[in-house]
């Protein structure tokens, strides 16, 4: 594979990470919470789609449309029961509560479905298998040319659409303004009639729905099992951090960067894929937060 092709595949992979990361980024931006169960919720979404597909035989994409209201409901319930309490309690509490939730979800899934891996790649048919080759040929060292998988294109397009839609929602609609206002100053928002609980619930519902979509893409492009959640969480979080926490478009770019880092690392040695992503993440943390006294603009530990 050429470097160009590796980067291209990295972009497709990164788009998938961006979708996974989108909900995490939204919840952080609005509520300052990192949901440690985010990856498991994505996997839960994959299982919901799996159940529908196995039960009805329809295509996974249509099955997701059916799963969507369920995911939205889960989001609302999650916020109104657990997260709302955790928000009032302290900085550590949401992390601890969602960590506990993560373990609960993983093990409930283990109980309901076996530890076996599943995949929706087969059910997605042509979407998984179709790809186009451009500029292909052989030259000295190896094969040249680039491959464009249909799934990769779809995920990339969906990612861009979702981020754009979310951005439009936040900047052009009144519910979007209310979300931004509540994110900035929940108390002042209450004083002008905004019920912060509902705003948070809406944000969580959106985050869970998009996470579910990430789960769907995970199921189609790869395999998943009940304990796949933490891996997705780490990739999603890395994407958010690389792109800059609190920035929506940053999360998209961060996802792409992560994907490219992983595929380039895989070029060197297939076992280095995830490691390359981790190293990029750590490098970004070191640069941004120093170990060296970079900027002294009131930044304290």
């Amino acid at each position, binding site marked *: 594979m050429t470097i160009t092709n590796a980067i291209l595949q990295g972009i497709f992979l990164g788009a998938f990470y961006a979708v996974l990361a989108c909900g995490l980024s939204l919840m952080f931006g609005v509520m300052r919470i990192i949901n440690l169960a985010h990856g498991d919720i994505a996997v839960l979404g994959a299982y919901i789609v799996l159940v529908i597909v196995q039960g009805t035989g329809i295509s996974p994409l249509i099955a997701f449309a059916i799963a969507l209201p369920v995911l939205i409901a889960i989001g609302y319930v999650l916020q109104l029961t657990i997260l709302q309490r955790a928000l009032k309690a302290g900085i550590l509490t949401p992390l601890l509560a969602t960590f506990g939730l993560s373990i609960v979800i993983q093990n409930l899934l283990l109980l309901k479905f076996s530890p076996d891996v599943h995949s929706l790649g087969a059910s997605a048919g042509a979407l998984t298998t179709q790809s186009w080759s451009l500029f292909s040929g052989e030259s000295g060292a190896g094969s040249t040319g680039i491959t464009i998988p249909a799934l990769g294109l779809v995920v990339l397009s969906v990612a861009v659409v979702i981020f754009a839609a979310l951005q439009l929602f936040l900047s052009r609609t*009144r519910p979007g303004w209310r979300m931004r*206002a509540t994110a900035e100053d929940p108390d002042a928002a*209450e*004083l*002008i*009639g905004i*019920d912060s609980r509902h705003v948070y619930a809406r944000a969580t519902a959106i985050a869970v729905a998009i996470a579910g979509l990430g789960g769907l893409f995970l199921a189609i492009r790869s395999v998943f099992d009940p304990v796949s959640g933490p891996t997705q969480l780490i990739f999603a979080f890395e994407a958010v951090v690389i792109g800059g926490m609190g920035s929506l478009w940053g999360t998209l770019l961060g996802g792409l960067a992560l994907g490219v880092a992983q595929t380039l690392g895989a070029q060197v040695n297939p076992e280095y894929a995830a490691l390359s992503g981790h190293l990029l993440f750590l490098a970004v943390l070191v640069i941004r937060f120093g170990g060296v006294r970079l900027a002294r603009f009131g930044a304290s530990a």
Partner: protein
Amino acid sequence: MSLLAVEDLDCRYGLLQAVRGVSLQVAERETVALIGANGAGKSTLLRAIAGAHQPHAGRVKLDEADVTSLSAHARVRRGIALVPEGRRLFAGLTVDENLRVAAASRPGGRWTVRTVIEVFPFLQARLHSPAATLSGGEQQAVAIGRALMTNPRLLLLDEASLGLAPVAVDAVYRSLGDVIREGATVLLVEQDLARALKVADRVVCMLEGRVVLEGDARSLDRDRIVNAYFGLRRAGVGGAGT
């Protein structure tokens, strides 16, 4: 019948009691100025009326209906709007967005972005600027406008002149005068005694959490006000309260 009735209100911060047994009434279309030294409990009282602070004891009633257990956003829907101390605009939103985000709470009243601009004409040019880029006076105008957008029946103002240049305060109070002339009911906390007395119908003075003086703004003796403000007894210095 009064629009707002506060009965025996007790407000605490942990062990510290900020408001002690305060009772107060504001009639429809009245403008009441709440004055007093720092720490007298004025802000806390306003916040308790708006629902931003849960009182320890006592009641807040709007139109004879008990709203004490209602959350702040529910009270906004009933018609109570607070312009908080320090303005607290949404810095990342534009002026236009700051105003319109407040609009949905009580639709169908006379206040729209257009009518707010009529009261604060200097905001027209800044409509699409992020709120963080505005001057203090402009921000105060947006803060008041934002509260007006909820079409309040009772407007609460906490230290509208704080941190503003005199020129800006003049502008704000001129506009406030317009709003009052339109028939609004206003309860305002104000450090600047002169301004407070000029704009208000009635004045209420607080000291150490209690109401120590109440009366008509124009006819109250200036010396009485000063004595009550500082907790001085008539005959000389010393002691607290009347």
